[in-house]
């Protein structure tokens, strides 16, 4: 798309469409999807632009179950693959995701979350934090989970998600929400070709005479062997925890109250910070960008510097459990949030802040 004559390629785009365009520019080789609100624009955008990208496989599957297994096959055959859906559809993919984690297949999985449980709503939610971060499918596995907070990050995290998933041979997930998918913002699109295409020696590319056959499987029937596989996976997750934590701290230098929020709620919390500081309440924000690995050390580092933590989420309180693990009871950890597709306002969050801190400052 678009010759920009060396200038940055700046657009005004919807989150879902920006993500789709980013995937094409990141060298995605195959996409399998199924329509579900609020992320259907990804499949629509890709099918509309398919003629410009004859080298990319774009297929509307008969179900999310089929789609995730097509992704399994395409990734196992060595292609850079992406799949997108929203909460109920992601639930349907959980078996396949567990298989991919076990078979150590890279893939980028995008969840544009909507309110649940059940069929729920089509409005934004962060109700799938546990599912994304703690497992979701069966067995001991982890996804690398990235939490964008802007349309720009919907783009950037596509590149980062592909890179990390291929580096670690592990599925990565972008945990977005319906608002990020639907809203339009200014975005700078990276040029195509900046991410080198993968070349996986383990892929089922056809057994040449010079190598043994490649097998992609998650079945290791001997328990001794299966435990070794598990130990290897756990060692990989520990490496990821060491090397790949991303977190942003805003206004934390002098903060008395630390808001902790990811994705859309972190944007709302920035407005709360402004409102609070105008009233003389020193509020800062810790924004985990990777949810796995979770920035425990970053959160922990503020324990001696703030009076309290307030976790803000669009759910009943999920990430707050990780904040509590980081704080280890050394400071109060509060929670406020909305559920079922409702979005908290900056004023609601400020009101909660005021119940925590009545005095303007420690002085």
């Amino acid at each position, binding site marked *: 798309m678009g010759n920009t004559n060396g200038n940055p390629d700046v657009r005004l785009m919807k989150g879902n469409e920006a993500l789709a365009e980013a995937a094409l520019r990141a060298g995605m080789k195959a996409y399998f999807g199924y329509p579900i609100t609020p992320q259907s624009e990804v499949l629509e955008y890709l099918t509309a632009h398919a003629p410009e990208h004859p080298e990319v*496989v774009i297929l509307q*599957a008969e179900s999310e179950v*089929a789609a995730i297994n097509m992704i399994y096959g395409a990734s196992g055959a060595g292609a850079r693959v992406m799949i997108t859906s929203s909460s109920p559809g992601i639930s349907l993919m959980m078996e396949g995701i567990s298989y991919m984690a076990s078979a150590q297949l890279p893939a980028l999985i995008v969840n544009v979350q909507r309110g649940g449980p059940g069929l729920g709503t089509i409005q934004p939610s962060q109700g799938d934090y546990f599912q994304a971060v703690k497992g979701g499918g069966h067995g001991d596995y982890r996804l690398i989970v990235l939490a964008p907070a802007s349309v720009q990050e919907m783009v950037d995290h596509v590149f980062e998600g592909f890179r990390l998933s291929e580096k670690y041979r592990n599925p990565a997930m972008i945990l977005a929400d319906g608002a990020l998918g639907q809203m339009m913002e200014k975005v700078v699109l990276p040029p195509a070709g900046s991410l080198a295409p993968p070349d996986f020696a383990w892929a089922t590319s056809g057994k040449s005479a010079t190598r043994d*056959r490649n097998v992609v499987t998650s079945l290791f029937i001997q328990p001794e062997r299966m435990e070794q596989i598990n130990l290897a996976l756990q060692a990989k997750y520990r490496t990821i925890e060491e090397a790949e934590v991303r977190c942003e701290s805003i206004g934390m230098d002098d903060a008395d109250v630390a808001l902790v929020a990811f994705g859309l709620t972190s944007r709302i919390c920035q407005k709360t910070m402004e409102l609070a500081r105008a009233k003389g309440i020193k509020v800062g924000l810790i924004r985990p960008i990777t949810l796995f690995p979770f920035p425990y050390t970053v959160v922990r580092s503020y324990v001696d510097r703030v009076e309290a933590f307030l976790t803000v989420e669009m759910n009943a309180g999920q990430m707050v459990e990780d904040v509590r693990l980081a704080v280890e009871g050394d400071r109060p950890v509060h929670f406020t949030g909305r559920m079922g597709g409702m979005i908290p306002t900056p004023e609601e969050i400020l009101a909660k802040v005021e119940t925590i801190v009545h005095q303007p400052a420690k002085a």
Partner: protein
Amino acid sequence: MENTMIPEGMEVVYKKPQTLTDTPMHYCPGCGHGVIHKILMEVIDEMGIQSETIGIAPVGCSVFAYDYMNVDMQEAAHGRASAVATGVKRVRPHKFVYSYQGDGDLAAIGTGETIHTVNRGENILMLFVNNGIYGMTGGQMAPTSLLGMKTSTSPFGREASTMGYPLKITELVAQLPGAYYVTRQSVHTTANVRKLKKAIEASFRYQKEKKGTCFIEVVSNCPSGWKMTPIEANEWLEKNMFPYYPLGDLKAPK
């Protein structure tokens, strides 16, 4: 893997294709899977397409097919072999891709994937082994179990009013425009083995020509699950399975 122990004056007239590994198969005595594996891999060997072929193994008795088949293989989740095969074929369109599934896998939990893979006319071979029972899990009722058939979950015999009818999924997929070649074969006699071999050869030829989905059902046995000797099982197969699942082409190019 060449046999160097051939006595002088003798020659090899029959051998295992090098597309099969040396791993001993776990199949029960008399089971059709071993023969079907061998014929499939023999065709791949004779056509010289070992390096060009990617196979998909199912969940079921043939879950370990990738241990025996000396080609690049992927092990699929239960029922999803044809979706996995779709993913492989779409990103490796010049390779030969086949899925290998049993009746529970292809015609129960994977029915949706089966229908839609064929309906898209994916250029793959779907090899479907129908023995009317869940062998791997210990002989439970399958979608293809015959009426009256006693299994561990239909201990008084399959009864239509509560358990439904044996599913003729091959007749079903033959209706779909994406299906190019649909045939039902068996491996209970050497003559039938030869016919299956021809069907597999034709399927790979059609795949090369991008004709659409080739679907081969092999009506097979399960001596352990049916609680019969191998000979009794093959007799039962002829007497009971073939009348309901008649052998022959359901859809063949003119």
